[in-house]
């Protein structure tokens, strides 16, 4: 096996799962998350020898794919509201509440929070990835974390409205 192929395999093994976690948290759709992560690896493989930071590259590509697909899916869902069948695994109570809470966050806030918690990304990295200013990212994180904490502290069941503090 060529060395680069071995490296790619190791990289794939180490990165597929955490990336899928992030994109599932963002999209709420596990199949979609796996699809975009796999597609990102397919995009990376032909360029493998030229990628300086494959981890960052694949993450960016996966997030961009997920974002554009998610926006398309959201538009479609809007048109066919109620027709979509959800096949979601069963998280614990906090996971359920978190999914519900994440779904209420604006897209960019949700992306920032997910990257912060699941990718251990710094504010600078999130700013680079999203193309936003660091101050904006801090604001997203502050609001997003506050909203999630409020949801979880109140232990609001999924689908309920957030009570005002």
């Amino acid at each position, binding site marked *: 096996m060529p060395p680069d192929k071995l490296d*790619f*395999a190791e990289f*794939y*093994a180490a990165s*597929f*799962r955490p990336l*899928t*976690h992030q994109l*599932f*948290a963002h999209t709420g759709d*596990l199949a979609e998350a*796996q699809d975009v992560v*796999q597609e990102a*690896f*397919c*995009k990376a*493989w*032909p*360029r*493998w*020898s*030229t990628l300086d930071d494959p981890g960052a*590259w694949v993450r*960016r*590509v996966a997030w*961009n*794919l997920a974002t554009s697909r998610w926006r398309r899916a959201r538009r479609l869902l809007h048109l066919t509201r109620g027709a979509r069948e959800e096949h979601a*695994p*069963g*998280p*614990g*109570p*906090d*996971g359920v*509440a*978190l*999914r519900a809470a994440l779904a209420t966050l604006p897209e960019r806030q949700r992306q920032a929070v997910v990257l912060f*918690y*699941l990718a251990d990304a710094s504010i600078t990295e999130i700013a*680079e*990835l999203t*193309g936003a200013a660091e101050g904006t990212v801090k604001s997203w994180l502050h609001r997003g*974390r506050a909203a*999630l*904490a*409020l949801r*979880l*502290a109140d232990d609001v069941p999924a689908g309920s409205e957030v009570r005002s503090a």
Partner: protein
Amino acid sequence: MLETDRVRDAFTDLTDSIDPFLRPPGVESVHTTVRRRRQRRLGVTAAAAVAVAAVAGLAQLPAMEQPAPVVADQPAPADTLAPTAGAPSPAPPSMGTASAGGPSAAVTRTPGRGQDAGGPRTGRPTEPAMPPPACASTVSATANGSNLVIAADVICPGETIAVSWVTYEARRDGSQQLFANERLTLTEAQDRVTATLRESPTCVGPWYVLRDDPAIPATIAAEESKPFPAGTVVASEDGEICLS
């Protein structure tokens, strides 16, 4: 702080909950997908090349009186002709209908003998019944990341083939903006060139390897699916990856 920890715990709970359902398709699946896409692109390119060759071949047909070149390549045309030398031609008498059959083909293969032998057929064998096969150059390109190798698999004597690579930058509205291009030439002396694709650092669009100097549009509209004339695209790869 406690609330933040709870958020973190909730994320852990969420990711733990999906782990049993995660089914990574695997590295082999990545390789297979990439291979399949390459083959599909090459197949499209090859089909285009065959189509061009077929059109070129058809264009020469009017110059041929005998549309039976395959028959003319049969191994023993002279033997077919020899016994009939001095005898009436077995071919139909009308030139206009003498388009098929071994004997007439044999005549085309050995014009001198046929002309001598068959008085009534004077003039017929002097027609260029089958033109020499046209030389059709073929070019291929392979890319490994940004490294490109463009090679002429067949190059005709004295021919110079213009090739170029072009990269586009993808735009949010779906259109593509010309990002970089380079023109190169292939000759008999240098039938292979290497190049490095320069791609947009922000929104990687498609790249193309072209031949014969087609016009390179500065912008490709989102709805445009064939930005280059048929037969000029040697290889290409789609790409719509915006990194910011």
